[in-house]
């Protein structure tokens, strides 16, 4: 066997080997966005399971008489618009960052945060004005489980945007050339946004 292929169980050899490896060391590309995308596919499957459960319940489990509600559409529709707009503002923040306009990028990030927070506030208002609670019937439970699980995602997203906003300050770790955090948060935000559109469609419109 080639002498260079010896075991490194010998502690003395370890240091020498590390130097050897550093010389021949190839760095590999950044696959974190690919990994995040795979994770979002998995996360999307969780929602898919919830949607499937909701649609099946709706199809085969009739609610007891007198317990069906017409959901108010005004507030959720405003909320949908808020989230859609926030996807555009986040995209703007990303392109500004890549163009080197960090100050402008941070403003767009703040705007996105505000839109996300407004969405959550709207969700809270809806929760407190709805005529049913978590345990009232199957529809009520599924409604809160679906919107709540999505709201949790939005909350996490808002926190992530704030972190990215902080990191994008001058001297922070996000720069026009190093902006993985911003890209990851943006991808995640678009995902949460897309899930809402489906959720809005089947929960409020269908």
């Amino acid at each position, binding site marked *: 066997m080639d002498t260079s292929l010896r075991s*490194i169980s010998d502690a003395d050899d370890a240091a020498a080997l590390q130097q050897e490896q550093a010389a*021949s060391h190839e760095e590999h590309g950044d*696959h974190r966005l690919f990994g995040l995308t795979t994770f979002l596919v998995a996360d999307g*499957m969780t929602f898919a399971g919830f949607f499937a459960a909701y649609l*099946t319940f709706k199809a085969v489990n009739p609610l007891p008489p007198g317990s069906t509600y017409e959901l108010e559409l005004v507030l959720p529709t405003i909320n949908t618009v808020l989230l859609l707009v926030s996807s555009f503002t986040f995209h703007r923040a990303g392109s500004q960052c890549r163009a080197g306009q960090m100050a402008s990028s941070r403003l767009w990030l703040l705007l996105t945060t505000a839109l996300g927070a407004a969405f959550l506030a709207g969700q809270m208002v809806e929760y407190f004005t709805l005529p049913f609670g978590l345990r009232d019937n199957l529809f009520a*439970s599924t409604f809160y489980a679906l919107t709540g699980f999505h709201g949790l995602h939005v909350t996490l997203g808002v926190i992530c945007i704030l972190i990215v906003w902080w990191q994008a300050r001058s001297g922070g770790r996000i720069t026009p050339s190093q902006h993985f955090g911003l890209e990851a948060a943006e991808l995640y935000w678009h995902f949460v946004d897309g899930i809402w559109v489906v959720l809005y469609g089947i929960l409020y419109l269908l």
Partner: protein
Amino acid sequence: MTIAHPTDLEPGLQPQGWLKYFSFSLDHKVIGLQYLVCGFVFYLIGGALAGVIRTELASPMADFVSRDTYNEVLTLHGTIMIFLWIVPVVNGAFGNYLIPFYVGARDMAFPRLNAVAFWLIPPAGILLISSYFLAGAASQSGWTAYPPLSLTTPAAGQIVWILSVLLLGGSSIFGGINFIATVLKLRRPGLKLMQLPMFCWAMLGTSILVVLSTPVLAGTLILLSFDIIAHTGFFNPQLGGNVVVYQHLFWFYSHPAVYIMVLPAFGLVSEILPVHARKPLFGYSTMVYSIMAIVVLGLIVWAHHMFTSGTPPWMRLFFTIATSFIAVPTGIKFFNWLATLWGGKIALNSAVLFSCAFIFNFVFGGITGVALAQVPFDIHVHDTYFVVGHFHYIVYGGSVFVIFASLYHWYPKFTGRLLNEDLGRLHFVLTFIGFNLCFAPQHWLGLNGMPRRVAEYDPAFTIWNQVSSVGALLMAISTIPLLLNVVLTALRGQPAGDNPWNALTPEWITSSPPPVENWIGEAPLVTEPYGYGVEPGTLELNRLRGQDLWASGKS
């Protein structure tokens, strides 16, 4: 943009020697062995629980443990064996150890995520087992946790069970993300997908299943915990809920879970057989396509577990046909393995014995599986010991036999020492006889109507239950030569050299055990991992497709 390699980041902080196996190590080889040893500890615990079950069933009355305890024991046994032994070992242990070698990388794509995925497992396992002592009573509703049973059994134990399975599911998803990224993105330049060793394809397929189906189980268990804690009615018929929806969502994960346990085993056998038969793996491309066919079909067969749950006729028809179709790609793989062995110079060592026993057991389990896919037969044997016999032939006769085969094959790579063949063959004989003695009679018991998950049964079933219990005892004894072998060999085994099997796959083209970054110098480019014992021209012939052979026959 490039990122620095993690082993560069904390020089000197990583413990050396045996201590590194207890650390948050980022080395895929260390993590692989962590999975292996941790999984084996849980295998011993789950095996002891199986011992309790078989001791109880040696007599028709519940005289060894109480009926409630029996339910806790069978729940823990199933959950431990699936989520803490087979899934982590066939995926986490061998996947982590081998995949970076096979793609020509120095580590997995996300080493930190990899370590996190492993370190979720011991706490989850301890949590699960401690529920037996801490919460008064462990979960009693089986590894399926079907409501309304799981809503009426002790709540605390059920919640701990859910928490533990959620942690293990998270670990599994993180692992799956890592494998997909490593196989697809981390391949050494010049290495094409269709040149990868078969285990890479198996892990890619498995990881796709993990990523697509595990989250559905997680969501379902969250809804179930709402039913238990907040008394919502998702799956509670008394509150207007629907138990069948739980079953659909549960089996959407848990049927693919069978493939998550078995596909990596298929991949491992495909690595072991060519080496010891000194022949190329037969039908490489058909093997790849059948793995992917199993992935696709595996996602659309779940309701064959629910033929007695009031499924409508069209659903029964669809799922019967889809399930029967799975036999086709699986059969292709089996004929490929037989053709690989055919005319080979087979070394009949422990690794090959276990692999061949796997083929035998899995064909039997596969045949009963196709039988179970047929609605009329399934209705007859549903919830009987026939099903128990069937799935133990799949997960033990399939996956666990392959884990043992892989242990004998790769132990020299892990340690630089060969396992003792005499002890290995003793282990094999005891396991093979014990396993078949334990589970073959269960088919007969089930056909005659003995229900599963009961501590007491009709005395007419006594004799075959006792045969089964003797088999279980033999299986318990069979772990003794294995443990002796592993410990004695580690201490003073025969040095194996770097490549005792003269294998061609990339993990053998380095020292045993390998250096931290797998190879000193550049990673080797292995484009023909199965080019055994053939002249270059013959190898090309082996690669020909059917239509090429047709054409050459005419000319």
